[in-house]
């Protein structure tokens, strides 16, 4: 019971510091003052994250090689067939979660996507390689973090440009 009260006191003191940093210079006695009723209300400090400046480009070739076949004979061909997973990348900033950003981008938060498509090379020389890369949609966005006290934003910051790559299950690029 005692430790619980201590935790509450610590939380209130922390909230006072947070608010004071934004609304007014912090006086020496501010962190030691007993919380007044209005200060208690300001303990309801929370943080929200928003994906902003979101744009996307489809049919982008990913960087990951998901298939690599070296032809053994002059004039031979190679067919790369399905079964491989491509990595779904989602860049994050601050403390926002992967699932929250994925939800905002309207893509799955799973780290991989199974590719179910094949491609056949033209006749090649022995030793030449036929490779496959995933195709998908590239998302560009920023994450804005806002700190709230009741209904007022008391702090806000925006990340640098971030990207996500969402592989298509039915499209690959072969070369």
């Amino acid at each position, binding site marked *: 019971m005692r430790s619980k009260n201590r935790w509450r006191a610590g939380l209130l003191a922390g909230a006072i510091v947070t608010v004071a940093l934004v609304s007014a210079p912090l006086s020496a006695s501010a962190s030691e003052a007993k919380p007044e009723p209005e200060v208690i209300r300001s303990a309801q400090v929370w943080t929200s994250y928003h994906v902003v400046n979101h744009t996307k480009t489809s049919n982008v070739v990913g960087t990951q090689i998901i*298939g690599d076949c*070296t032809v053994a004979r002059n004039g*031979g*061909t190679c067919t*790369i*067939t399905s*079964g491989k997973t491509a990595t779904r990348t989602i860049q994050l900033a601050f403390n926002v979660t992967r699932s929250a950003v994925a939800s905002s981008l309207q893509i799955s938060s799973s780290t991989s996507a199974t590719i179910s498509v094949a491609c056949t090379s033209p*006749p090649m020389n022995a030793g030449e390689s036929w490779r496959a890369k995933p195709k998908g949609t590239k998302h560009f966005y920023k994450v804005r973090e806002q700190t709230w006290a009741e209904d007022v934003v008391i702090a806000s910051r925006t990340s640098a440009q971030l990207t996500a790559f969402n592989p298509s299950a039915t499209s690959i690029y072969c070369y």
Partner: protein
Amino acid sequence: LNRRPAAALGAVLLITLSGCSSTGASPADIVGRTFAEADPDLPENAQYLVQDVSVEFDQKPSYNADQFGSSQWTVLASCSDEDTLQASSVIEIAVAPTSEVGDQEVEAARNGEYADLVTCDF
């Protein structure tokens, strides 16, 4: 007295089932088979690199992904990234038209004489 036929039946079933098991097949086990015969031993979730080596038989390559598991093609060489096919995530197979592959070529394939038709760069 009645237990003997049951035990014998159980033994037969056990032998039959173990004979049908495909979980332990290695890449070498499918060499010399048609692609259709090899297909039951091939895991669904692996990636396949299928080399069409028709040129070995003076034929133009014509294999495409729709012919995966077709009896029109015979496996001349195979390798994978694990010892067994079921455990593998990448499987490479060299195929030639079944119509061009005779018993002699099948025997040669099983003896490993076409092993260099797969490059196994994984």
